[in-house]
């Protein structure tokens, strides 16, 4: 299979779906003439023109609202947030309008819109530009929240998101954009369905549930621990809402131990939700309390060494795994 970057996988997904359905269009800051702040949309303007690849002013609430209205009226917008941090000024549009319109109107107005962009911290961009928004949006019924960690999932999930009749919060990892991975050819038209977790690695001693960027961190730790004879099973939920808790629970029933790793703050959120599902559904299989390794509970500091400490570290992941395995 060919290898392409996460960034290109996303672009391919959008281009393929735009070719497939004339109702699909893209709007956001710098998506057109600038070719994308992170070059995810590079080349789309050339292929689809200004009518379908639309540069917006800095007005997230405005263009997110436009997208919701267009979706009410039957179009299928893709909204690119330059980063998800900026979605907070469009929170009303996403939470009050996109998420609720379908139910509030008793099914008269589905909102097939994809909000996408890089999530969580980049590198030394400070407190306001480093939000992991997973907990904000996973809390909302009516939204679906997706966070691919590989190029293949990025493409397959984005294609599914664009075809979905409901609003999708599509989280990407800025530091994942350059990651290369195997992705099927364009004609494969591979869709990755929502609500199906991926067993990223099979193991027998402990289950680690992780999504998005920290997956790579966990893989490194798992490699190192394999040498010490600890067999780590890695589950990537891929979509946080809907959540494939069955796969997670099945794995935990096998390994009897679980660590949940995430880059959102530790208070609540999908990380805590997953722990809750496990304690409810796999209680009698647990040999240790489920632990989490997370970003620290502070606004992101600027200084590099502090940021490196705040972002969920290999050390914290390893410590949690060792603890649930009673190795300490």
């Amino acid at each position: 299979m060919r290898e392409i970057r996460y960034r290109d996988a996303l672009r391919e997904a959008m281009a393929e779906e735009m070719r497939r359905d004339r109702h699909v269009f893209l709007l956001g800051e710098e998506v057109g003439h600038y070719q994308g702040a992170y070059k995810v949309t590079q080349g789309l303007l050339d292929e689809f023109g200004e009518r379908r690849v639309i540069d917006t002013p800095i007005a997230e609430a405005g263009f997110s609202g436009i997208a919701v209205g267009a979706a009410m009226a039957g179009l299928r917008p893709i909204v690119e947030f330059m980063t998800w941090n900026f979605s907070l000024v469009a929170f009303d549009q996403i939470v009050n309008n996109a998420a609720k319109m379908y139910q509030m109107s008793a099914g008269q107005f589905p909102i097939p819109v994809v909000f996408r962009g890089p999530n969580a911290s980049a590198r030394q961009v400070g407190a306001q530009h480093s939000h992991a928004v997973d907990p904000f949006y996973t809390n909302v019924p009516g939204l679906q929240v997706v966070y691919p960690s590989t190029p293949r999932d990025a493409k397959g999930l984005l294609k599914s998101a664009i075809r979905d009749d409901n609003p999708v919060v599509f989280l990407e990892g800025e530091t994942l954009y350059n990651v290369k991975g195997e992705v099927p050819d364009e004609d494969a038209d591979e869709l990755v369905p929502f609500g199906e977790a991926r067993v990223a690695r099979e193991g027998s001693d402990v289950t680690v549930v992780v999504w998005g960027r920290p997956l790579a961190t966990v893989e490194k730790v798992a490699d190192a621990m394999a040498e010490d004879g600890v067999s780590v099973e890695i589950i990537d939920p891929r979509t946080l809402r809907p959540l494939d808790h069955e796969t997670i629970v099945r794995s935990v029933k096998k390994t009897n131990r679980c660590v949940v790793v995430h880059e959102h703050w530790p208070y609540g959120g999908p990380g805590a939700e997953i722990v809750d599902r496990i304690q409810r559904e796999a209680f009698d299989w647990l040999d240790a309390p489920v632990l989490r390794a997370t970003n620290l509970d502070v606004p992101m500091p600027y200084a590099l060494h502090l940021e490196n400490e705040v972002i969920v570290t290999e050390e914290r992941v390893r410590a949690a795994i060792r603890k649930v395995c009673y190795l300490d």
Partner: protein
Amino acid sequence: MAKIVGLPKLSPTMEEGTLARWAVSEGDRVEVDDLVAEIETDKATMEWRAFDPGVILKILVPEGEILAPDAPVAIFGEEGEDISALLAEVAKGDAGSNGDGAEAAGAAATSGAPGAEAPEAVPAAPREETPAPSRPSGGRVLASPLVRRLGREHDIDLSQVPGSGPGGRIIKRDIDEWLAGPRPTPGAPARGERRPPRVEKLTSMRRTIARRLTESKQTVPHFYLTIDTDAGPLMAARKQINAHLADDGEKVSVNDLILKACAVALRRVPEANASFAGDAIHYHQVVDVSVAVAVPDGLVTPVVRDADLKGVREISREVRDLATRARDKKLMPEEMTDGTFSLSNLGMYGIEDFAAVINPPEGMILAVGTVREEPVVKDGQIVPGQRMRATLSCDHRVVDGALGARWLAAFKDVLEQPVLMLV
């Protein structure tokens, strides 16, 4: 400065101790005299109390671990200190606190970021500083949910399974070992079935018993002298005393009187109140009588000090108190050391006569049997009598046959004329 704290030596003869129960958890702040842990020594379960204020930064050993004195068990310090270097030291195995572990227990200091080694991100909420909580000891079996399920499925009595997890939690590993290892099968055995013995790890007390009594029998040259006594006067005296005490709801036992008789005899034959000390013999100036007390998983020998100077009633009260606290494992080590003579009584089990093993470094132990009702010849007449046999074990290095016999005669003399206890 954070500091590694070793297992405190809580009894003079403690050569190892079991960390029976942690009374604190990581992160707990302790103040002076707060309970830190309970340590099961060869003698008793001792309370380890903090000497200085500080925070328990890390607990290094689970409950149930058997350790040598001064083995690293915890890291004390101030909240937030970086203890990675100390942990590395512990991991290397060259850690050990300096001097008395108990003294180090409170060593405290400042600085650092909290929970650097904690796998969970620490919530920003301020940490409450609570006094060391007292966790329930005994009773509740700590086990992971998985272990509980496996316990149900395999019909395992989890209280029998040693737990190796935090706080003695039984974890899957323990169950796996339990299931793989020899163990009693519930239900009746099939005919002809060969069943392996149930293996139970030695408790600290059993280890001590094993070690000390083996040592005694192997190194102390025992010899035994048995004497039969008329217990009638003793029983009469007891009846009289108890009638007197009835109003106070008190009673003295036969053994209390025997103990007193021993004490008087030791005073009368002071050469027998001696211990072998390698190149010397110690002749004791005090009469401290050790009493063997059976406790659920062994026996202990609390000491009645200056028994020769105490009245029977006082001895009785003291023995009762010592026995109660022995069964509750509440005796202090010093209450179980430095006796000069031992008394063991199995009369209540109907034993007529037995020979006891000397409790070193004491020179003698008296083993007393039951009071027998039987016909005796008195002044040519056969009359009902009450007899009691006693066997004295002597350390021949200290007490020769004649001396032992002399002491035993003195004992018999006092026993048969209880009024001599007053002299």
